[in-house]
């Protein structure tokens, strides 16, 4: 109990820091700094209707590359951390039976979810959403599959091949930026196209597709690793 009160005092101290931050915050009326530039020139420079996507993929594309890397890294680490023994899977999974209804509805739902995911990342530069969200939706679809149709398996080889392919392509696009356009990860290796259409904003849709694929496969990988661990024993 003493310890908890000590912690409480600490948190109060911490709250003091937070409070000073909070008190120094005054709502601003206008955009300033770099955002102003994004708002004013984003349309011309990047050509994406969704300015968040423009920032994510282009202006701060390097961050996004890192972000993808983090997921990839996490998946890899979890992969070797859990070190699933793939050969055992067959016998174990066969035992389990899940409800028929769930299975059937999943069979319908899964393609729809995948489709939704694909939609989200293809339209990432126009509407809310993008590679990450799309990828997450696709992964959710697979989660559903794991739950509802436990006998279905996805090949890890395929997963990692897709993952590697999309990752590599992402890097290559980045490098193409140096060669063909102004710099690493420049989206103008493809033409900016008509503002607001699907095939616009240069390489953003392409990158988002790759990110979507990559994030989707990575998250699926993590979950399937966990799931297979589940089936162990």
């Amino acid at each position, binding site marked *: 109990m003493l310890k908890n009160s000590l912690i409480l005092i600490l948190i109060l101290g911490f709250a003091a820091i937070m409070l000073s931050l909070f008190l120094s915050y005054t709502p601003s009326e206008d955009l300033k700094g770099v955002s*102003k530039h994004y708002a004013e020139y984003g349309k011309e420079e990047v050509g994406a209707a969704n300015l968040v996507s423009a920032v994510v993929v282009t202006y701060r594309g390097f961050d996004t590359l890192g972000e993808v*890397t983090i997921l990839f890294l996490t998946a*890899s680490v979890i992969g070797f951390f859990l070190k699933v023994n793939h050969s055992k899977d067959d016998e174990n999974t066969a035992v389990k039976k899940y409800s028929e209804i769930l299975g059937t509805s999943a069979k319908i739902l899964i393609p729809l979810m995948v489709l939704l995911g694909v939609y989200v990342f293809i339209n990432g530069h126009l509407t809310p959403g993008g590679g990450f969200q799309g990828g997450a939706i696709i992964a959710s679809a697979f989660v559903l599959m794991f739950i509802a149709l436990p006998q279905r398996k996805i090949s890890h080889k395929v997963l*990692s091949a897709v993952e590697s392919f999309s990752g590599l392509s992402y890097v290559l696009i980045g490098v193409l930026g140096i060669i063909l356009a102004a*710099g690493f990860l420049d989206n103008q290796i493809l033409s900016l196209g008509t503002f607001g259409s699907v095939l616009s904003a240069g390489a953003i849709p392409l990158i988002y597709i790759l990110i979507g694929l990559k994030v989707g496969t990575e998250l699926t990988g993590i979950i399937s690793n966990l799931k297979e661990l589940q089936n162990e024993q």
Partner: protein
Amino acid sequence: MVNPIYIVAVLLGVAFTSGFFSKKGKNIAGYLSMLALGFVSFVSLQWLHGFLSEQQAAAQIFTTAFKPPFSINLLMGKEEAVFTSLINIMGLIGGLYLFRKLKETGSNAFIALLLLIMGLNVIVMTRDLFNLFVFMEISSIAIAGLIILSQNVKSISSGFKYMLAGGLISGMLLLGTVFLYYFTGTLNIDGMLQQNLNLVKGSSVAVFLVITAIVLELKPFPANGWGVDVYEGADAGISALISSAYATASVYVFMKLIPVASEQFQFLIAAIGIITFVASNLMGLRQSNPNRLLGYSSISQIGLLMAIIGLSSVIGESTNFIVISILVSHYFAKAGLFWISGIIKTNSIRDWSVLRHSKILLVSFGIFIFALVGLPPFPSFFGKWELIMNLSGSHNFIWVTAILVGSFLEAAYMFRWLGYAIKLELPSEIKPVIKLNKIIPVILFAASVITAGYFTGMNHEYGKLINYIPLAFALAFVLIEFLPVFIKNTLAIAGLALYFYLNYQSYTDISRIFAAIFLLGGILTLLAGYAYKGKRLGFFPFALMMFAGLIGLIEAKSTLEFFYAWELMTIGSYFLIIRGKKSITHALSYMLFSIGGAYLIMAGLGIASIGKADLTLSILHQVTEYAPLVFILLAVGFMTKTASIGLHIWLPGAHAEAEADVSPMVSAILLKAGVFGLLILLMAMGEQFIGKVSIPYLLSWVGALTALMGNMMAAFQEDAKKLLAYSSIGALGYAVFGLSLMSHLGWLTAISFSITHFMLKALLFLAIGGVVWRLKTKDMYKMGGLIKRMPFSFFSVLIGIIVLAGVPPLTGFSGKWLFYQAVMEKQWFLQGAVLFFSGIIAFLYCFRLIHAIFLGQLKDEHRNVKEAPFWILVPQYILLAVLLGFSFLPGSMLKPIGNMLLPFLPDGAIHWNGQLATTVYGYWNGKTVMIIIVGIFSVVFGWLWFMNRKARKIKQFNIVYAAERPFRPETTHFAYNFFAPYKKAIGFLVAPGITNFWNRIDEGAHAVSDKFTKLYNGNGQTYLIHIVAFIVVIYLISFGGF
């Protein structure tokens, strides 16, 4: 130049590609990874080369088509090139070291390594705060992944703690970053630097959060328990990566961001850094697990760097030089040490003696330890020097003190460890398996740190001037270690002789005397080395290194050269001393006292440099500020070498346990380095005062008490070499007193005394060494009657003790006579009386030495003992000849010395008329005294021989012995506790008070260390509490509330 963005692209690309390789392909993944790491190393090294050859300007690398601050940009400047090179090389070599381990785990492990290096590269180069955050996350996740390469409860729990701490810290960083964005409208670091962020409370809190988060990444005390646990829990190869690569990058991030903070905040962080430095080193004292110990050491080094960077506004433009040189040493050394630890896999530093199975590993281990502690010729030596010079040059004495205390603690446990490795018994059960891929990195880094040291020296203003030839000569002996002693010894003697011949004319007068003591003395003692058979591994490089240091002292023109030589001498002699049989603790205490003394000297030179443009030794002539302080620091520093009272406890063991020819080297020659130091100090600075008390006056009491204590201790020793060692302490007390007189006569006494002491101590140590060589024991009561078996050694000792006791007519008396004239002139009678008293006590141990060993009853087991080896006798008889010569013609030695002193102390109070010396108080003619005594002696001897020529020699036990006949020599050899009544009377004076004092300090340090380490209770949550508490406390300190 290859665009640095390819570093990122290639590493990422290869990492992503690894997914294509299934289990079978993991070899390919491995080789590909190595290739990629090789490539990025090449890229960064290429840039580094460009910058070093000054053909290259710093380059901005933009991502996307937009200029910063609208998009993220990277910068490749000189510092970035250095840091990325270090990181990438560590990635490559560390990857090589871990290759098998990684391969076992699969391609995913290579991915983690590649991404770690990639992340670190970016955090070094990026100029965008949020980007920094992202890539720091990458690196720390990669580390978290690598920690669990070997999966056991230790590594997993440490990894978990790491993740928890990392999560909290990165949360702070993100919070700070976002608020900085809110206040500045940009995420670009350069953009932030252009604004003054410390005007508004909010933005300064944001800065506080960002900087505190970065500081927490650097593991400040006490919020660093997680860090230490990781170092211990992870595989050694990973710890190496963390300690070298990750810490390197973190330091650079800190360097990059610190200008954002206000000056006060920078100082606060510097204070945290220094506290971390001292506290971690203190805690290192009680560690026995090698990895944990290295962990504490890593944290402390980073703490030091934190402090240096925090103080950059004080240190000025050499900050980068200091940071990089210290960091580079740390980088190579820590990686190397972790690697070695991974090779031998023991849980206790006491088991590190297994290193002796592999000479190359042992040598590397030594190199790393020295590099870490900051001894020459390693980069950190120059870094630390520059640091201390700058800090003390700007009156920051508290910082200097803290840094030196911390460094000293670090040296303490590092050298204890080295001692274990060199001397402890080999544990039989452990035999390390040495794989090629693990040993090559170690050797590579050991070689690199030496090279780096050379380049650092070359890049230092005064480092350039250092004469590296003697050191190179010494090191060359490493290469010919396979040759037999005979050849190496000849080469060494030839080298010293040639050097002396070529250079002695270039020395000034007094330097020439000391050069003669150092070099000719060196040659004489080396002559004894011919007695050794075999290869005598590890002797010559260090002996010559010591002589290289001694030469350097004489030749030094600048303060750095002097200090460099001083340290070099210390290293060489340390290894000579540790060669002795039971010298493990003595060598350690020698090293610690030496390092402590060296730090005082460094601080003294630093304070002396206040306000001086150039740092030649002549600055000591013009010390304007804190002159008494400078004087005291330097004097105490030098007196650790002369083993003055209070600082002497290292000497007896160190000198006594050393080998037959090493004892004279360290006792007769090395101690004179301290005298030389004191001499040039006094010459330069003259008399200084604390208040109204003259410091030389205090010094005179130190000298007198040293002499008393040394001689008294000597009288009560049972160990012959210890007796001589204590006698050296006493003798050096005389020298210190002589110097403290600050008069012509006093200095004449001191210098002539040094010369005489050099000769007689070399003589005695060699003679006793020869006896010990044959008898295999140093206990005097186990000897006896050896005059019959070793008459030549006996004669050496006889003359030696007569000289030592200062009995006329031999040259020892000239010292005493001069001494009294000087005392009379200066009127320091009480000290004089104490010294006289110690002189009489010298008589006690002199007699004891010769009696217990050579006289009395010969022991049964020594009936067939042979005379000491020929080559040990040769230098003795050369010395004897010189001693007798000086006895006969004292004026011939003293007069030239007196003339040399005239420029410094012109009142030559002594007049020479042939061999007759006259002062105001008295007179003395060494030659006639000699003639008269020899005359009387011959007449008396003639008379006795005439009367008693038919005396019959009788057997050993044929003595008058109250009605019984003794038949055991042991019972009739009265030698043990010889001066029992004396000890009973005044033995309390030599109660080991000083030893107890130092022991208590040692215990105290360990106790405090124990208390501190209890903070780290192993609970990850407690560590988190520490972190939050750290943040809150720092906030309260810097903002004082809301």
